[in-house]
């Protein structure tokens, strides 16, 4: 009986070990937390640290503003969805506002990640890939 149970559980373990679906974009970029966590191993100079902190600070102030707006617009959309019957045109217009803000957040984040990547040498990038 135990053998049969083990045989039935085996495929679950196999699927659990399966590599996660590859992130086609994220794997080429490095989050600031990862860079700063390995600043010493990467041999970052003081000017590099200052430049990274500066870029992160600028992006974070934008994130805060955009995320605040996105939350407000999402709340409005929730209210529209609670109505019965739901007003399709209004909901879609509101969804456009939410998605436009999401797009801005993604764009700001991507700008930050690309700039951080460009601050690193190819050797530092390879090292981070290994440390990831």
């Amino acid at each position, binding site marked *: *009986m135990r*053998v*049969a149970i*083990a*045989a*039935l559980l*085996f*495929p679950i373990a*196999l*699927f659990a070990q*399966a590599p996660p*679906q590859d*992130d*086609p*974009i*994220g794997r080429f970029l490095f*989050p*600031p*937390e990862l860079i700063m966590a390995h600043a010493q191993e990467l041999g970052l100079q003081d000017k590099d640290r200052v430049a990274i902190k500066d870029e*992160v600070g600028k*992006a*974070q102030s934008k*994130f*805060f503003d955009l*995320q605040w707006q996105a939350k407000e617009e999402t709340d409005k959309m929730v209210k529209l969805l609670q109505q019965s019957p739901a007003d399709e045109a209004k909901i879609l217009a509101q969804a456009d506002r939410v998605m436009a803000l*999401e797009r801005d*957040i*993604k764009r*700001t*984040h*991507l700008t*930050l*990640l690309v700039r951080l990547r460009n601050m690193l040498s190819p050797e530092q990038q390879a090292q981070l890939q290994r440390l990831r």
Partner: protein
Amino acid sequence: MNEDDDLREAFARLREVDAQQTPRIAMPCAQPQRRRFMMPAIAAVLLLMTIALVYVSRTKPAPVDAIRIETWRAPTDFLLKTPGSDLTSSVPRLQPQLPDIRKGDRS
């Protein structure tokens, strides 16, 4: 003496008739023995089938139509989780455990 022989013969015939009519019964002790060999065999077959299934599913790329919308993730969705966003969604715990002065705890 003759009567005894007749009786013996009659019983012998009766036993023969009974033997022909009685279905064959396997020895009860033989059953677990058989099952003991059956379970690993079933398990082995199941194992081979699942290995084959996993192998086939991994080697053969899923057709585009088969990608289900529930499992699909937008490739840029990770960009919505911004650095430091966890800082703005929680309150820091400055001193989680204060020493109990009443018990003379000076640590």
